[in-house]
């Protein structure tokens, strides 16, 4: 039955075309100055937060845990990448600018450092559940902040300045696609199902042979990697870093985005991150009320829809197309000439 594969390729083609169209359009708009510097900055900030929020969704929405130290991973990634880009340089390799390669490598390095921290923190922390996990990740996040504040290489409490403004729409878009693709592909696989089962019922998951610790670490590490990436993008957007950037408040802002968007919905996180980044930037009067409204929203949404505004519903271009053309979804079916007790090795023609 290659119907599965055919449907998959059609969907992937559709999504890729949409992404490319979006990318080309926005790039054109930037180049033609339709989107001026002000809007471009907001756009970049949006993408940074989208990467962070989607990565957090992996541990919050899909794994069902509440890590409160996400900003700590962003901090590690940001500082690592910034240290690399301010101390090294790569010459141009033919037509490819060396700076771009350096930025890419530095960001990846930042992600890896964050991921290692994620594994180191996750191994002890994920033995705990619920509230305890939240508190211990909070503690680790704060410890990271204190560490960063006291090491010379990060500039200590004074922070780091003079970081190149390497983050642009292309890089933001690239990493957004990476995090969304990674999360989506992972979640829709047996490993994703395993992660979700940990959220649903740990004891039942163990009883069907799921190695809880392994999958908790996988989700945690994956989330940490992309948090580090977003930290690097952030560092190279505002061009200076201080430890206070990545404190408890940033972790909470990320949490609000994920929760409001929907625990378990990638598209929800994207929408929420976009809205919650743009609105405070654009409505300055709103900014003073921002945190009050956020906290109120958090409480209200939790009371009325505990799984977040979009829950685990995903926007899907493929589904939209199907609705427009009134096609039915391909549900896995038993072959029509299936008889109980016989071998099901038939090849469908």
């Amino acid at each position: 039955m290659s119907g599965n594969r055919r449907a998959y390729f059609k969907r992937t083609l559709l999504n890729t075309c949409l992404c490319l169209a979006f990318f080309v359009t926005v790039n054109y708009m930037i180049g033609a100055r339709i989107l001026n510097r002000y809007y471009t900055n907001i756009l970049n900030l949006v993408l940074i937060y989208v990467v962070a929020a989607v990565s957090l969704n992996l541990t919050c929405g899909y794994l069902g845990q509440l890590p409160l130290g996400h900003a700590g991973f962003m901090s590690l990634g940001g500082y690592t990448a910034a240290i690399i880009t301010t101390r090294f340089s790569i010459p141009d390799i033919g037509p490819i600018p060396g700076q771009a390669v350096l930025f890419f490598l530095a960001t990846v390095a930042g992600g890896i450092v964050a991921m290692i921290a994620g594994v180191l923190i996750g191994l002890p922390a994920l033995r705990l559940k619920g509230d305890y996990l939240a508190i211990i990740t909070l503690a680790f996040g704060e410890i990271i902040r204190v560490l960063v504040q006291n090491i010379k290489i990060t500039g200590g409490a004074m922070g780091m300045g003079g970081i190149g403004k390497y983050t642009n729409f292309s890089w933001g878009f690239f990493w957004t696609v990476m995090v969304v693709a990674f999360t989506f592909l992972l979640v829709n696989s047996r490993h994703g199902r395993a992660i979700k089962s940990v959220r649903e019922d740990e004891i039942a998951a163990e009883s069907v042979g799921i190695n809880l610790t392994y999958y908790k670490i996988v989700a945690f590490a994956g989330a940490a990697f992309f948090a580090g990436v977003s930290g690097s993008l952030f560092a190279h957007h505002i061009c200076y870093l201080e430890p206070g950037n990545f404190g408890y408040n940033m972790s909470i802002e990320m949490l609000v985005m994920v929760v409001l968007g929907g625990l378990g919905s990638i598209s929800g996180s994207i929408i929420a991150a976009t809205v919650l980044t743009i609105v405070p930037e654009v409505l300055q009067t709103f900014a003073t009320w921002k945190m009050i409204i956020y906290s109120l929203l958090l409480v209200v949404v939790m009371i009325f829809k505990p799984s977040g505004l979009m829950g685990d519903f995903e926007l899907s271009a493929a589904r939209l197309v199907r609705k427009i053309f009134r096609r039915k979804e391909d549900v896995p079916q038993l072959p029509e000439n299936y008889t109980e007790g016989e071998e099901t090795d038939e090849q469908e023609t």
Partner: protein
Amino acid sequence: MNLINHLINGIHVGSIYALVALGYNMVYGIVKLINFAHGDIIMAGAYVAFFALDAGMPTVVAVAASVVFCVVLGVVIEKVAYRPLRKSAKISLLITAIGISLLLENTAQKLFSATPRLFPKIIEGGFYVGDRQISMTTIVTIAVSALLMAGLTVFVKTTNAGKAMRAVSEDTEAAQLMGINVDRTISMTFAIGSGLAAIAAVLYCCSYPQVYPTMGALFGIKAFVAAVLGGIGSIPGAVVGGLMIGIAEALTKGYLSSMWADAIVFSFLIITLLLKPSGILGRKVVEKV
């Protein structure tokens, strides 16, 4: 300053931590929730007491006002925000608690601005023991805390209401079947915890007289560490944990530097959670399969 002074300071601060930790312990014991908003109830209590004293009311009235306000605040929060989520996933309840905490902090910030207010001095004097001075504040703090904790222990062990609290903590369903009004018991738990928080707030302000919107946050977290260290769900545990954290903090500030004090406290938390999550005096909770 030497060892004895540090120890006395430690016990002083530790008693306040213990009072606050009691609130965390009681709430966690009964609804299995880390009440992130607890620290901010302290902040609310401090502000109420401040404004009352500022308006010229006598100390006793101000303290009473603070207690009443905090009790009402705690009970309202439980009714409005936590009760609807009792049946939902734990993560939702936790997020709500965080939301309430933020709401309180930011509302206070909006209403009172972030500039710290100076809490008036309401306790004067001290004693000389040998050639050391022990301030009245320290004595009052330790005495009041000890009295309250003893009172609470007696309350929980002997009164029906106290027994109801213990029953609901152990097994909510069974308690309900026994005819205990679970909702009222939970409300009462929050009320007592919040009341203790108000008194802790006043005591805290006697020693650290700055009142500002985020004063409850860090203090609350450290008190929570004390609760975990001593054994979450255990009243004597809160005392032990509070004293340990208080002394550790005082010693660190005295011999190392205050910058590391926070880190040390957090390390305590991590070590406890990793080695013995149920704390020094806590019991292991087994999940029913």
